């Protein structure tokens, strides 16, 4: 769609839609958001928009379409995280929330209620053979995976 109509349609879904299974923790998500904000501020966005940059920051590789495929939503998605980033200081959170609700059919739940698919995370970030994961209990392993994911995301801007 082009022209005014296209603009309107696009602004209605001007959010980052993220597949929630691959998100290990709030800290991991925050780290990706911070990296995207910083890139925007430094004029160093690698993708077109701040919202796509968040997906890119989460992805372990530098391929943009790969990031969308892994972290973006698909027809089969049942739980997702919707993020709005805006520079306007007056943006009202409750207004944003109702605008989000008008484009997504579903219920809002606290982040802790979304479950993480740990084996998919391991596969996505290629953590299967990490020496630090050997001989850990399930709980410890999840903590350690989360830690490695956070560090991966945080390091990404300088890792390439």
């Amino acid at each position, binding site marked *: 769609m082009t022209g005014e109509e296209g603009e309107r349609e696009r602004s209605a879904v001007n959010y980052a839609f993220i597949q929630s299974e691959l998100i290990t923790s709030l*800290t991991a998500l925050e780290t990706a958001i*911070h990296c995207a*904000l910083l890139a925007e501020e430094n004029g160093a966005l690698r993708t077109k928009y701040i919202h796509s940059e968040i997906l890119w920051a989460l992805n372990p590789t530098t391929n943009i379409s790969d990031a969308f495929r892994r972290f973006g939503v698909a027809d089969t998605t049942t739980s997702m995280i919707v993020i709005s980033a805006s520079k306007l200081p007056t943006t009202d959170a409750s207004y944003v929330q109702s605008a989000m609700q008008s484009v997504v059919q579903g219920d809002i739940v606290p982040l802790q209620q979304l479950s993480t698919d740990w084996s998919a995370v391991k596969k996505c970030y290629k953590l299967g053979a990490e020496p*630090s994961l050997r001989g850990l209990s399930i709980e410890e392993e999840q903590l350690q995976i989360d830690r*490695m994911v956070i560090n991966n995301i*945080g390091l990404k*801007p*300088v890792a390439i």
Partner: protein
Amino acid sequence: MSLYKLLDASELVSQGAEAKVYKGFLTSPPSQLVLLKYRFPKKYRHPSLSAQLTRTRITSEARALVRCVRNGVRVPDVRVVDVESGIIAMEWINGHTVRSLLGDSEDPDNQQREDTASLETYGVSQEQLMILIGQALGRMHKADIIHSDLTTSNMMIHSKNGRTELVLIDFGLSFQSNLVEDKAVDLYVLERAFSSTHPQSEGLYAAVLDSYATELGTKAWITVKKRLDDVRLRGRKRSMVG
């Protein structure tokens, strides 16, 4: 540009010749504490050289930290790296330095805070602490990371969710090397630091080496041990003759 603004809102914790360390938050409303390490531009250097050095140092520090995480060495998590402004944001470790816990009253970390703690607060004995140190160093060296500034002030103890961990900090001088020489010198530097800051706890360092040896494996340990003996005789610097 953006991370500079964060510095204004943060509290200056300490300042060295290379960098300033701040304590602050990345988010508002504040959630998790972070440590901001700001490598400020050096006035005595040409601006472009200063920027270049800051850039490489900040990158190598962040990489070393992540390499440690992947190899099971507990270090602060890297949160945001901004090479443009020379700022690296990492997890705030809420704990005490090993230096203060081993009873060094002159430790600046001990002097500026009220909540002085002892090893009992963390539920570890001196011997257990030495084992933790040796284990961390062993893992780090197995991953070919040389810290280069091992002292008891660059090690912290902290408790999270009922578990006590030893955290290595300050990888500003670290580099990667698989040479036995570098590993032996790393151990030697810590040995000297132990005997000068904690003269009363002599003999403790042997326990560190024991646990280091276990972590490293006998074969690798024998070569490091041999070289460490050499280093002890000649000092940190290798003879430049020849």
